[in-house]
């Protein structure tokens, strides 16, 4: 069976004269619920999977290599494409790497702008994640409700930076544009409106009996396993590990802000099941609302970008910057050799780590469960391959 790209051996079990054969299913790259071009080679015995082997590389665009060719400022639009669902965090990671290498002091107002944009982006990304999760489980209605709210955030961000998906908002040294007049009030009004909707959303789907039965106790990942497999973000916190870069390795203005870090509690089964990973995202949206309200109300005056040379040449050296993306700890390792082009850039993303544990947790699950597992990890295909 070399059509799969993997040498999957066909097992023949002779049992009382009847020989049975495992079914090899190629799920993806075109499949309704792999969210982009993911592929799994599934070895199934009827409905029960024996193994699901992830196959990655369908969306590899050499983004890290491009960084070496386009220069420091020029790479910013490319970072949007690392994770198009949560592009602000990629912007922020790259900007922070440049700032740390060159030792640039970023103006306070621009830090606030960054946090506001990033938290809006987090809500946006989580809405898509929980919405498409419900859709994968078979409930279509929550998805449209989630996307309706996401549209408003798109509108807000469009007014902020002119783009709805690939923002290119941040710059090394600050942000590209100041908050437009009247935007702060609109954003606050939106936060006021959105926060009660999270409860409505919970009433709509989260505690639905069928939904919790489908997600509870499925693909349990213990805290130990989660750490061993390097899970990050909501996937890690779903397993009960209270780790968040915003709090444990603070950057930007997060130390000044008051917010909680929700973790999975196993309320519908075991700690670390699909439901925990899901509900952590719902709760994080509430925390993001809290952060947004604080930032929007305490927005300091001042410039939004530091003076950075157009021909930016940070001194030789390397740095590793962590950002808490919507998909968790996003690491940027950047090496500078003192020229106008980075010597090397390596991006460490949450989806890639989550992809590695799928083979382990998918053993002996049903095929329908694999869909729930993929959705619960909130995988974004371009972030896996870059």
């Amino acid at each position, binding site marked *: 069976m070399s059509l799969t790209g993997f040498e999957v051996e066909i097992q023949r079990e002779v049992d009382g004269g009847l020989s049975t054969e495992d*079914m090899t*299913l190629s799920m993806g790259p075109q*499949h*309704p*619920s792999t969210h982009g071009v993911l592929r799994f080679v599934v070895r199934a015995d*009827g*409905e029960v999977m024996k193994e699901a082997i992830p196959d990655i590389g369908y969306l590899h665009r050499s983004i890290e290599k491009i960084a070496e060719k386009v220069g420091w400022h020029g790479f910013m639009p490319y970072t949007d494409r690392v994770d198009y669902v949560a592009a602000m965090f990629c912007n922020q990671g790259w900007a922070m790497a440049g700032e740390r290498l060159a030792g640039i002091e970023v103006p306070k107002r621009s830090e606030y702008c960054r946090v506001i944009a990033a938290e809006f982006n987090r809500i946006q990304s989580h809405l898509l994640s929980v919405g498409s999760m*419900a*859709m*994968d*489980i*078979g*409930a*279509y*209605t929550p998805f*449209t*409700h989630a996307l*309706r709210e996401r549209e*408003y955030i798109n*509108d*807000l961000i469009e*007014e902020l930076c002119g783009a709805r998906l690939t923002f290119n908002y941040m710059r090394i040294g600050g942000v590209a544009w100041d908050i437009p007049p*009247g935007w702060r*009030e*609109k*954003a*606050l*009004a*939106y936060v*006021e*409106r959105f926060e*009660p*909707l999270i409860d*409505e959303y919970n*009433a709509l*789907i989260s505690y*639905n009996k*069928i*939904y919790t*039965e*489908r997600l509870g106790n499925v693909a349990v990942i213990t805290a130990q396993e989660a750490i061993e497999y390097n899970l990050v973000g909501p996937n890690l916190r779903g397993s009960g590990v209270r780790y968040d870069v915003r709090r444990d390795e603070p950057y930007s203005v997060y130390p000044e802000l008051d917010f909680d870090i929700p973790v999975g509690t196993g309320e519908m089964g075991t700690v670390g099941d699909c439901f925990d990973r899901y509900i952590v995202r719902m709760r994080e949206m509430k925390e993001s609302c809290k952060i947004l309200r604080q930032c929007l*109300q305490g927005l300091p005056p001042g410039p939004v970008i530091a003076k950075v040379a157009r021909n930016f040449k940070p001194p030789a050296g390397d740095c590793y910057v962590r950002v808490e993306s919507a998909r968790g700890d996003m690491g940027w390792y950047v090496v500078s050799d003192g020229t106008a082009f980075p010597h090397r850039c390596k991006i460490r993303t949450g989806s890639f780590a989550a992809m590695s544990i799928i083979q382990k947790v998918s053993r002996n699950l*049903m*095929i*329908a*469960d694999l*869909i729930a597992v993929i959705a619960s990890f909130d995988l974004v295909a371009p972030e896996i391959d870059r």
Partner: protein
Amino acid sequence: MQELVDRLVADGLVPGGIPLWACYLAAMLLFGGIVVFVFILPIAGITTWVERRVAGRIQSRIGPNRTGPAGFLQWLADGIKSVLKEDIVPSAADVPLFKLAPYVVITGFVAAFVVVPFGGPLIIADLNVGILYLTAVTALVVVGILMAGWASNNKWSLLGGIRSAAQIVSYEIPAGLSFLPVVMLAGTLSMQGIIRHQGWAPWTWHVFDNPFTFLAFFIFFVSALAEGNRTPFDLPEAESELVMGFATEYSGLRNLLFFMAEWGNLYIIGAVVTTLFLGGWQIPLALAEHPVPRTVLQFALFFAKAYFWVFVAVWLRWTLPRIRVDQMMVMCWKYLVPLAFVNLMGTAVWMVLFPAGLGGVRVLLCLCAAGLLGVFARRVVFHIRRARLTRQDLSFNPLSTARVIG
């Protein structure tokens, strides 16, 4: 049917000289034709339109609104589109089986309409094995789906076909066991006979006859949904899991036939539930004496009752997630089947103890159902009102309505 023809002959509306049997035959053929071409085919299409409009309301969007008033002709446009599309047969498919499968499914579905009543005299054939015949021909759908799943030579289709076979065969047992109490009460299998055993008043309906039939009604509706592949039991074509299940490889007209059968099945579910449990077409006799207006009224009432259950099925589909295969089986064999057996025995015992039935219990169950509906309606209204309050402005747009807060 005979009664209506007799009355028409007596009124002199039929020209003389035609033998009576020819009149009966002509009436039957005419009615059968009308049912197939004027009723079944459009009803499946219109149900898709209803489903999409209702889904639009539920999902806070609009739904089809371009073709005809409120998008009413959308089903026709979709139908024409499907007919004109290329009919692709995969080269690796088992061609004869692949081509045959949709027709088997549609045959099972159309044949079921033979015993579905539409009004007092309106039924294509009031077979004396009515409900049994209905169960038998709808089981033909499994054969078609399994055929489609196998012949497509696609693993997703095969999984869909297997799921469908397991599901429909399993759920036929609780469905069958829960119409048996009704058959016992009515003493007949004929659809019209079952309706005639009930009256127009809710407390004379079978569903309220005793606590066991009350429960049987719910079991039957759930099982019927499962047999009709509706959410939360739409596993055979679970889009997010099996792409489109058994219909993955089908296109054009053949695909249309599958889906016509699915949406038409919804009406059959509603009609059967109405017939068995909810008094069918029974209207107060005093309302209309002449058979023609009476038949029209009966048809209207029956259609309204049946379509209400279509609406409920649509509503469920856009509210609930899908259950898993093992959960579906557990639900059927561990809960529904034993409960259905209890119902069967319970009804038998009840009939021995109270041969004439208990009027008090009937009224009590009626009140129970009314109470349930009331509580439910109150909850729905409460949620709608709360949603309005929290939102204040449903057309909120941060770009157009900037409101300063605090």
